[in-house]
């Protein structure tokens, strides 16, 4: 196994220099180009003062340049921090402060966002750099693309070891502050090494690059492609809105692997975007991130009988995926439960009771993960790290917060959550982060956020009940939009005189959920009967 992620690229650049590594908007970037451009950019980063272990934030839309920047940061001995370019500036500035970035890489389309972040305050040590000609901003610009392109393309000395951090991925934090999950080179390499062998990914394969770069699923798309010497076909994020355009992308790019999230697959099924025996090149379809409703899975499997369907499961803290289940045949009926399966090589999944003892088969407990994928912890947060990563008689284990049971067939089935973290459209969201943002708004006397299963293809709907007579939902949404990414903003609202409380004086969440379900049903009955998506 390689020691560093960038070693995967170095090897392919010497073996297949002129083969396409990345395809985006009809243009191919070869392995040689990816390697040499990232070498040049790595030098520019070092010249700008980036040293071993420094954090390089990427304010870059999904593009070949973003991938070049990832590898450049690694080659410079740094960790990269991919930012969500659709998040508000306040949240992104906060992330730069938490990770104490040494450099942020941007392009003109994200320049406005960068200017806003600078105005809100980013760490003084952060230098700015442009992957194009850039634009005027109020900050210390270290270099532009032209400067980087003038540097020599030859290989740099290896700096990292396998145990060093490769990137930090920020996820929703229950107390209102995003948490940075540190992922090492070894974490990713272990998964990719297994996945390339298990899925038999080869040169000539064409893999989708669908999730955004701040999702850890994209790490598999990118590093899996490069480890195998295959091609990654990056999808513009916006294409996810239009199911028929997504299908056309799979068809026209002749993809051999499509890795997506259930909400998108469900969206495509609902609008019947897949033809019988569609996508003749497709060999496998993978999903991860949330539960894939069985009726939608049946739709896909019926149309694509020659494709292998595999469910992957795993939180960011355990790197990409920890378990897998290849669905052996199209389920016979819509109530069939699809398990998350069995551990990937080098991983262990444990269903434990409150005393950390294994639960017998069919008994629900909390799911813990051990093994090669486990992150060293949260960035400079020993307290949260100690709460989630536990030294036990089973070794070091990560508490996922998922409830699960082991079936009599030995497969693991997810049951629900032990806390208020939810998955919505593939995004992992702590409802507590939304509540914290609500409570920070002047005029909000009380607020509670719950998620309901509205039965739609989007999974759970986020609902907010609040006390504060002078505030309208539209005004609150606008306020929240300044601190939260759009996918965290509640869709359903209810203004109350007083929050319903339970016997302990706490917010009665089951009661709130019921109230929102009733509101949702009344709304559906009133609007556009028969046109339900």
């Amino acid at each position, binding site marked *: 196994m390689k020691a560093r992620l960038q070693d995967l690229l170095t090897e392919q650049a010497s073996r297949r220099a002129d083969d396409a590594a990345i395809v985006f908007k009809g243009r191919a970037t070869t392995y040689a180009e990816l390697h040499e451009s990232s070498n040049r950019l790595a030098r520019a980063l070092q010249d700008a003062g980036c040293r071993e272990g420094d954090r390089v934030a990427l304010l870059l839309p999904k593009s070949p340049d973003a991938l070049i920047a990832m590898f450049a940061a690694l080659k410079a001995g740094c960790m990269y921090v991919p930012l969500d*370019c*659709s998040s508000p500036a306040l949240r992104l500035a906060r992330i730069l402060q938490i990770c104490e970035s040494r450099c942020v890489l941007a392009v003109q389309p994200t320049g406005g966002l960068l200017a806003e972040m600078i105005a809100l305050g980013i760490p003084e040590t952060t230098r700015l750099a442009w992957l194009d000609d850039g634009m005027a901003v109020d900050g210390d610009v270290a270099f532009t693309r032209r400067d980087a392109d003038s540097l020599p393309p030859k290989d740099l000395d290896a700096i990292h070891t396998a145990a060093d951090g490769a990137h930090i991925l920020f996820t929703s934090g229950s107390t209102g502050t995003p948490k940075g999950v540190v992922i090492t080179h070894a974490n990713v390499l272990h998964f990719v090494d297994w996945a390339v062998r298990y899925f038999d990914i080869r040169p000539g394969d064409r893999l989708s690059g669908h999730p955004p770069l701040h999702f850890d699923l994209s790490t598999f798309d990118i590093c899996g492609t490069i480890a195998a010497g295959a091609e990654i076909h990056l999808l*513009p994020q*916006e*294409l*996810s*809105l*239009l*199911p*028929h*355009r997504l299908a056309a992308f799979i068809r026209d790019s002749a993809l051999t692997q499509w890795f997506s999230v259930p*909400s*998108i697959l469900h*969206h495509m099924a609902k*609008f019947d*975007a897949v033809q019988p025996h569609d996508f003749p090149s497709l060999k496998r379809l993978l999903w991860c991130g949330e539960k894939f409703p069985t009726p939608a899975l049946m739709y896909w499997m019926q149309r694509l009988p020659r494709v292998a369907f595999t469910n992957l499961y795993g939180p960011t803290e355990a790197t990409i995926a920890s378990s897998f289940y290849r669905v052996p045949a199209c389920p016979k009926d819509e109530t069939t439960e699809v398990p998350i399966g069995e551990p990937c090589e080098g991983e262990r999944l444990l269903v434990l009771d409150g005393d950390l003892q294994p639960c017998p088969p069919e008994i629900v407990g909390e799911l813990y993960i051990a093994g090669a994928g486990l992150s060293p912890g949260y960035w400079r947060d020993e307290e949260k790290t100690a709460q989630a990563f536990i030294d036990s008689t089973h070794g070091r284990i990560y508490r996922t917060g998922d409830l699960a049971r082991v079936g009599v067939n030995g497969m693991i089935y997810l049951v629900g959550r032990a806390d208020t973290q939810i998955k919505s*459209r593939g995004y992992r969201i702590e409802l507590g982060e939304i509540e914290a943002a609500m409570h920070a708004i002047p005029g909000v006397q009380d607020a509670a956020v719950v998620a309901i299963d509205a039965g*739609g293809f*989007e999974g759970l709907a986020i609902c907010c009940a609040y006390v504060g007579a002078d505030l309208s*939902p*539209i005004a609150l*949404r*606008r306020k929240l939009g300044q601190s939260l*990414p*759009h*996918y965290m903003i509640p*869709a359903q*609202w209810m203004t109350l005189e007083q929050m319903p409380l339970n016997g302990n004086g706490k917010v009665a969440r089951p009661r709130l959920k019921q109230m929102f379900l009733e509101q949702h049903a009344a709304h559906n009955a009133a*609007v*556009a009967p028969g*046109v339900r*998506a």
Partner: protein
Amino acid sequence: MKAEDATIGAIRGLLSEKLLVEVDSPEADLLKAGILDSLALIQLLVHLEERFGVKIALDELEIEDLRSISSIAQMVEQQRAIQGAARVPRNTVLPVNR
């Protein structure tokens, strides 16, 4: 072709009343900021069909039709012109904004 102010105003009204989304200007990018996600899009299409009496087929839309309130208004007006001008046979593919 530029959409009429009345159409733009009506779509802006639908977004704020039905989807609780306020947009700064008709040209503001709805996609970049993630304002229009797939759930919001489906709801918006239902409301547009009701409000303007046009049929909008999801499989005929292009991403750029959805970029801004202004481009949505153009798409709606074109659909209205096409669908109002002729009795359109069912299942006919209508050109959208191209």
